[in-house]
């Protein structure tokens, strides 16, 4: 007989023993005894001291014998041996290497800013020949001399006090070494907010501002200032007294331009509209559609009003007469020089080619090219459709209008937006020229008011519309974090900041320029005599003809201009009637 009861009892004990052994095993896995804990990570070695000499030989620098054999492939040039050592007795240290990295970054940015500044300086040649080509031959010497000497007058005025007013309180330029001598801004407190008005460090570049970083910044800002000054000479060409031009230019370089530039770029109140009042990133003007071109354009408007039109420009019934320039070749060549220089104007405004989002310089350059291109298209098509011919001078002005308009938004927008901005600018300049001439009845020989004033303002507004927020220049702009973004990309307050800037240009800067030039007119007299104007300014004002070997076409007295009109211009009008 089988003993089932005994077998069952044995089986139960086996199961229990098995379960007990299993539990013990599980417990041993979840609660590892201290003796079996994983080894702690080895302690990190101490950081090398910044001043401990490094083992340079490990980097295998080329020997003197190697270098003497020449280096056609460039593999032995630029090695650890080229790092500047602060203590030759001690040798290369980590501190030396770290300092060299920082200096390299600043040196790259210095070189970039200076080279682009040199390009902008060369734009003076472009402006000079564009304006001279659009004027009559009898005024060519005078027009060239205005554009030539405006460089010197403006530079001098800017060195004496303009730079200090503009940038004296702009705070450290981080891309140019971060040196902080430009740290004194005159402010007022109004309505509970601080309003920066002008800087007070940097007169004559002396004292603490005798600084390598400040020098680079001065050169770059100076060439921008001079662009604004030269714009005015175009609107007043062919009848502006040279002495009045000199005084007016010095005043603009010393006072008018630097004030607005401080408000926009020098840490002044316009740039702080974002931080103080929540208006986007404050007035944003990447390279100066407003600061440079619109300032020049509204000053040109003031001058055109004060100085009056050229004799013969308008008939008695107010209809305008064309007064074509004497050399389209130099006009369009000048436009190319300007387009070339604009590669310094816009991309250079990053003040950096290393760090702080500076690698966007390629985008800025392409945006600039595209806007200039579509600007010329816009003007060409407008003139061709409306008047039946592709007009050369307006095509050139269309290129310039596109470049002017893209100057402010170039660092903030996409290529497609750039093309649109330029195209609109090209059409706008043609419409504006017609408006200025036929409605306002102002004489602007080169279209300065329309190219720089109208399209400078369009450029300022387009930032508030097209800025797409993708730019990142060190994480903030004007003290507000993030990228600049316009209405089409979700920020209407940026547009408001730009409109405040436009109001400042037309209301503040224009009034300042108008009053200053009105005073100059009272004291010195802005306009030449009618006799000198009809003879051409080269001999009366400059003492020499630009083209002494050419026979210039004699001018006939336009009908409707009588001797009584001379009373307005301080000299009797006595030109005999001649046939052309």
């Amino acid at each position, binding site marked *: 007989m089988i003993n089932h009861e005994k077998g069952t009892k044995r089986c139960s004990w086996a199961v229990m023993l098995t379960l007990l052994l299993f539990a013990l095993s599980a417990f041993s896995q979840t609660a590892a005894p201290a003796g079996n804990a994983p080894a702690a990570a080895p302690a990190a070695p101490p950081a090398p001291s910044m001043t401990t000499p490094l083992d340079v030989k490990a980097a295998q620098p080329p020997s003197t014998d190697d270098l003497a054999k020449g280096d056609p492939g460039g593999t032995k040039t630029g090695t650890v041996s080229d790092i500047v050592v602060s203590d030759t007795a001690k040798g290369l240290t980590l501190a030396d290497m770290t300092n060299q990295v920082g200096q390299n970054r600043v040196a790259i940015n210095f070189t970039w800013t200076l080279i682009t500044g040199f390009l902008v300086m060369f734009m003076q040649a472009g402006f000079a020949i564009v304006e001279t080509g659009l004027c009559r031959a009898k005024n060519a010497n005078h027009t060239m001399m205005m554009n030539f000497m405006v460089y010197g007058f403006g530079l001098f005025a800017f060195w004496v006090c303009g730079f200090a007013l503009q940038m004296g309180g702009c705070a450290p330029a981080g891309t140019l070494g971060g040196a902080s001598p430009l740290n004194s801004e005159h402010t007022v407190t109004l*309505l509970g907010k601080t309003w920066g008005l002008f800087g007070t460090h940097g007169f004559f570049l002396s004292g603490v501002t005798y600084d390598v970083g400040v020098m680079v910044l001065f050169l770059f800002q100076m060439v921008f200032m001079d662009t604004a000054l030269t714009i005015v000479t175009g609107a007043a060409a062919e009848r502006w007294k040279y002495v009045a031009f000199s005084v007016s230019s010095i005043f603009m370089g010393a006072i008018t331009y630097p004030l607005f530039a401080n408000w926009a770029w020098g840490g002044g109140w316009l740039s702080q509209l974002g931080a103080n009042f929540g208006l986007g990133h404050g007035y944003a003007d990447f390279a100066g559609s407003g600061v440079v071109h619109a300032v020049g354009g509204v000053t040109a408007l003031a001058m055109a009003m004060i100085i009056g039109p050229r004799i013969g420009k308008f008939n008695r019934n107010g209809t305008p007469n064309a007064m074509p320039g004497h050399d389209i070749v130099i006009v369009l060549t000048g436009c190319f020089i300007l387009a070339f220089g604009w590669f310094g104007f816009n991309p250079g405004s990053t003040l950096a080619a290393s760090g702080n989002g500076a690698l966007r310089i390629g985008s800025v350059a392409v945006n600039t090219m595209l806007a200039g291109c579509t600007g010329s298209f816009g003007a060409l098509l407008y003139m061709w459709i409306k008047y039946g011919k592709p007009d050369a001078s307006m095509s050139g002005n269309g290129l310039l209008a596109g470049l002017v308009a893209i100057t402010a938004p170039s660092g903030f927008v996409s290529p497609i937006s750039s093309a649109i901005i330029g195209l609109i600018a090209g059409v706008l300049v043609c419409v504006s020229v017609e408006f200025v001439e036929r409605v306002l*009845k102002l004489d602007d020989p080169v279209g300065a008011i329309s190219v720089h004033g109208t399209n400078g303002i369009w450029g300022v507004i387009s930032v508030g519309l097209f800025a797409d927020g993708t730019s990142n220049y060190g994480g903030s702009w004007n003290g507000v974090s993030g990228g600049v973004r316009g209405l089409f990309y979700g920020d209407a307050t940026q547009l408001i900041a730009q409109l405040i800037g436009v109001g400042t240009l037309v209301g*503040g800067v224009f009034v300042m320029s108008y009053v200053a030039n009105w005073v100059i007119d009272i004291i010195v007299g802005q306009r030449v005599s009618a006799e000198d104007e009809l003879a051409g300014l080269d001999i009366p004002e400059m003492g020499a003809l630009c083209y002494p070997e050419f026979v210039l076409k004699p001018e006939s007295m336009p009908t409707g201009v009588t001797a009584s009109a001379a009373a307005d211009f301080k000299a009797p009008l006595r030109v005999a009637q001649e046939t052309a």
Partner: protein
Amino acid sequence: MRIAGLLLALAGWLIPIVTVVETQSTTIRLVVSLAGIALTLFGVLVVLNKVHLKQAIWKA
């Protein structure tokens, strides 16, 4: 009239600035900024320019 034109231009500049300080409304700020520019342009291009057109050489 010359002074009137200049004062209108200044008013068109300053009124939007005061408005921006006094109100937080984006719509009001936008409308007043545009109106300010219009006022400035009126002062410069209409009132002030009229003064110069009265004395224009081609009207003599």
